[in-house]
């Protein structure tokens, strides 16, 4: 079963049908729905961090350094998940941290998606020298272990959250280019593309209006999966001191600051990691559901 937009312009109805079919498949997968719900909760937390967080992310309570969570001896309800070494509320920092992770995911995915689509479309559409040139560059990028290349790129650009995002977007680029190119090459053999060509549709319109919408399924899946990779890689860079810089409440950076207290205060190490893991897990669950619902090959098998 392939999703094709009919040539006659009854798009609203067609689009709604596609969406309904997609939801029918997606909602069959309980894990995916759970992932989606959790993801929406994270988005809400990030949006309303100012309202939800009991304290400011960088407010230091000098009377409560490394205070344990409320259920442990020495903890109280003022700081539900305890405080870190400078007396900042863990819960509030985690809540504000959700903003950074979602922001990183959005920026990285949009950057690599847009550039990847353009390059992949060009490679798959024009073939020949353009194709060879683009794909050889992508081969080079992919030859490096992703985190290593990102680290080196950040070393060049200087350690900061923005530069970490740029580096991760560059590292993820080849996957989008390869996927788009492969999808474009399949779509190019279809009769409706030939038909459009015969009517005299010009190249840019052919590329973006006729071909691209029919290549979106694998790209959407990849976007979901690389959203989680982006969060993981940015946290790793933050952890190594090459991403967001202290006192930013980014989860990876929080872990880096917490490292020296690992054997004394388990909560400063545990909670940021739980936040990263659950967020990434929710997105991956969602991504799996998206793939099953959108991938024509796996459907009904």
């Amino acid at each position: 079963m392939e999703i094709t937009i009919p040539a006659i312009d009854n798009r609203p109805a067609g689009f709604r049908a596609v969406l309904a079919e997609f939801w029918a498949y997606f909602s069959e997968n309980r894990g995916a729905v759970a992932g989606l719900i959790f993801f929406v909760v994270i988005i809400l937390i990030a949006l309303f961090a100012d309202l939800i967080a009991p304290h400011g992310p960088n407010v230091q309570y000098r009377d409560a350094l490394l205070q344990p969570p409320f259920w442990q001896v020495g903890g109280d309800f003022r700081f539900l998940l305890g405080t870190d070494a400078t007396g900042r509320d863990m819960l509030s920092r985690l809540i504000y941290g959700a903003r950074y992770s979602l922001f990183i995911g959005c920026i990285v995915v949009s950057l690599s998606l847009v550039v990847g689509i353009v390059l992949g479309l060009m490679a798959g559409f024009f073939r020949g020298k353009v194709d060879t040139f683009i794909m050889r560059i992508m081969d080079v990028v992919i030859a490096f272990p992703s985190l290593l290349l990102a680290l080196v790129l950040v070393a060049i650009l200087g350690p900061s959250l923005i530069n970490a995002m740029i580096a991760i977007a560059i590292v993820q680029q080849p996957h989008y280019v390869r996927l788009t190119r492969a999808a474009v090459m399949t779509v190019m053999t279809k009769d409706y593309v030939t038909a459009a060509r015969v009517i005299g549709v010009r190249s840019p319109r052919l590329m973006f209006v006729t071909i691209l919408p029919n290549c979106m399924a694998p790209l959407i899946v990849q976007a979901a999966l690389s959203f989680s990779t982006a969060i993981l890689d940015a946290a790793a860079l933050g952890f190594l001191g090459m991403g967001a810089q202290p006192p930013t409440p980014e989860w990876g950076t929080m872990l880096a600051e917490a490292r020296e207290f690992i054997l004394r205060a388990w909560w400063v190490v545990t909670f940021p990691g739980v936040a990263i893991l659950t967020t990434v897990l929710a997105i991956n669950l969602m991504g799996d559901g998206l793939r099953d619902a959108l991938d024509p090959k796996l459907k009904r098998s």
Partner: protein
Amino acid sequence: MLVYFLRKLGVIIPTFFGVTLIAFVFIRLLPGDPVLLLAGERGMSEQRHAELMAQFGFDKPVIVQYGVYLKQLFSGDFGTSIITKKPVLEEFATLFPATIELSLCAIILAVLFGLPAGMIAATKRGSIFDHTVMTGALTGYSMPIFWWGLLLIILFSGVLGWTPVSGRISLLYYFEPVTGFMLIDSLLSGQQGAFASALSHLILPAIVLGTIPLAVIARQTRSAMLEVLSEDYVRTARAKGLSPARVIGLHALRNALIPVITVIGLQIGVLFAGAILTETIFSWPGIGKWMVDSIFRRDYSAVQGGLLLIAVIVMFVNLVVDLLYGLINPQIRHTD
């Protein structure tokens, strides 16, 4: 097969030059004077600066500089570390066995647990075991491994006191490296307790580094197995009255292994990326920690050499995997 090999080679050679170009450009893109970066000397005189400029070849046109750089590479000169003043290749070679030892143990763990887990999950599709394995695999796949390492340290080193926190072997033992692999060297040294010490240092990092490959292998084995189990020849084997163990172990597994082997091979890049984090957490003296340390010490000459060497190794391993894949699966040779 030869055509297939040549085609692969035709792709890898331009990639190799691309990789050298990246390493070459890297040092010139860094903010600051490349001569100062490479020499690592402070407060040098004008004359010394000009001298070094000529020595490193920065006074020549860029294209000539690249030619010189390539020539040096092919004669085995990957630069000299600014901090230790030793050749980068030599440093790399001394640290590399530690990374290989760790990566090998990680991948062995991953295959040892991932393969059977994926197989059983596939044969008992929909069971509680299947759901548990798949949930576990997705969790492992989503794991921030640097945090996972810290958690294991808290549990096994902090609470239980079973394993040491860092390094490759206890300071009580000393012997000259023979193979570079601590597990083998400790056995060769004949010192009592040395092997146990090396093993206790290795186990946590190996688990941490093996987590993501384990998850990927389990998922891949399951889906490959499911695909094969629905094939006609498996039904025929069953119809002939072969025991389920024989059908699964012999007929199905052999064919399901083909994509799994590729996935295992492709984990090498993942292992290197993981080694950067794992080695940093456990102070494991391998390539990953060395690269991170070099970046922080601004030893850009070491970073440049290491970057290139790692990329070349990953490319080489991927080429070997591709060729092996072509060897065991003739279909792939004849399609693109």
